[in-house]
């Protein structure tokens, strides 16, 4: 969603600096998994605010519905039944969606200038009008978030309600959550809030409770309070140490400059070889030899 009211910190496929004069507060959304009851009000609010309507799917025997994120479902609740040693059977429910990485792999991979934007407040947004539909963001993302529409071939994901945040509103999911499981504010405030909640959870016996703000992607602007922060994978495969894949880094940070230099060297090498060594002409001697051979034939 194109928005001029938020400052841009980083722009896909752009090699020059972004404007940096104005300083804005970094924001974050904190999802406290230990307070979530899995009601999906956030999913509904997301659809409503963003004018989305997914197809009615089928029930696969779990509460996961839709089963996965799509271009129409930018956030989905994932329900995991796990047995932990300390507490036996537990139902761990995680609201999945874009993590709004500080170092976004989607943006790194994107070849279209301005199709992916990171605002100064930390929100990562897809600008569909610049998107060419190549799907590189899917390869770049360590959280399997971007979805390419079958209809228009554009990439979609959670915007962190950048349009609402720009005018001082909280994201739709935050507004609607009935248990106060989702909070929104400055990143620092959210970290403090999380620390308080983690202490509480520890007092109540969740000795591994903690904040999920993974350093491998520079931290995220969507963070989780997890009651088992030592095992994020329990929460429907949340990666323990997400980073931009080494293949993507090799592709975008190593291969790209080396290849450009190599191809330029080949072209310039040719030109200078020609200028310095001259063309490889057929020698007069051989021309004369061939003439004589042809004379002989007659």
């Amino acid at each position, binding site marked *: 969603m194109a928005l001029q009211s938020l400052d841009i910190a980083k722009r896909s496929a752009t*090699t020059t600096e972004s404007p940096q004069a104005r300083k804005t507060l970094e924001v974050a959304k904190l999802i406290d998994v230990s307070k979530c009851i899995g009601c999906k009000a956030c999913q509904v609010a997301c659809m409503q605010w963003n004018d989305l309507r997914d197809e009615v799917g089928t029930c696969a025997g779990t509460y996961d519905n839709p089963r996965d994120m799509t271009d129409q479902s930018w956030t989905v609740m994932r329900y995991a039944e796990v047995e932990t040693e300390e507490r036996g059977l537990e139902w761990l429910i995680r609201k999945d969606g874009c993590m709004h990485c500080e170092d976004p792999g989607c943006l790194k991979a994107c070849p279209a200038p301005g199709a992916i934007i990171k605002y100064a407040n930390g929100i990562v947004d897809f600008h569909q009008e610049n998107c*060419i*539909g190549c799907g590189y963001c899917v*390869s770049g993302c360590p959280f*399997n978030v971007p979805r390419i529409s079958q209809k228009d071939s554009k990439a979609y994901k959670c915007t962190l309600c950048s349009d609402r945040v720009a005018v001082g509103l909280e994201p739709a999911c935050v507004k609607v959550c009935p248990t106060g499981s989702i909070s929104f504010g400055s990143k620092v405030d959210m970290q403090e809030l999380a620390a308080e909640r983690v202490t509480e959870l520890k007092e109540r016996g969740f000795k591994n409770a903690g904040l999920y703000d993974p350093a491998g992607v520079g931290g995220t602007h969507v963070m989780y309070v997890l009651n088992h922060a030592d095992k994020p994978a329990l929460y429907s495969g949340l990666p323990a140490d997400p980073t931009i894949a080494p293949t993507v880094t090799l592709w975008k940070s190593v291969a*790209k400059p080396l*290849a450009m230099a190599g191809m330029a060297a080949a072209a310039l090498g040719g030109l200078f070889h020609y200028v310095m060594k001259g063309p490889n002409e057929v020698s007069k001697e*051989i021309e004369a030899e061939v003439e004589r051979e042809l004379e002989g034939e007659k």
Partner: protein
Amino acid sequence: MIRDPHDLQRYTASERANHWVTGICFILLALSGLSLFHPALFPLTMLFGGGTWTRILHPFIGVVMMLFFVVMFFRFQGLNRMREADWEWVKRAKEMVNGDDHNMPEMGKYNGGQKLLFWFLGVAMLVLFVSGIVIWRAYFSASFPIGVVRLGALLHAVFAALMIAAIIVHVYAAIWVRGTIRAMLYGTVTRAWAKQHHRAWYKQMTGK
């Protein structure tokens, strides 16, 4: 259109057409691919009707190129087997590049460098085709694990760059060695050209 009845036929009309279709596809692929490869080259997408059209067209052109390349590959592969003299040629290539080809071993229709280029292009096309299918988001990427798609993107970019560099060398060699380009334009070369650069082939063609 006979320029000189003594000229030697190097390529048939159909071989030339095959080569040019492949060559045109290659140029379109290189321009469209590079436009997505580096931001500095993104303006090249304008040649194809914008970023989205570039993304749509590139893989289809790739498939066309692959079809014509395969035909060309099987037409020419028999003539591109590396022999002893070819390795000797490769070892001495530096002398040739420095402008002195007096001591180069006698070459058949293709020299050692051309043959190595031929096999490299075969490998590069295979890698580009397979990785190109893997990263073709609209139809195929969803069928591959994400790690494979990432590797596909890396390999596609690396082999595209290598192939572009190789083709620059290929085209330059044709310009540098005077009298070569006409082989791909009208199909013939002069006898003196053949005797100087491909003496074994010259002997085979003329019996001299």
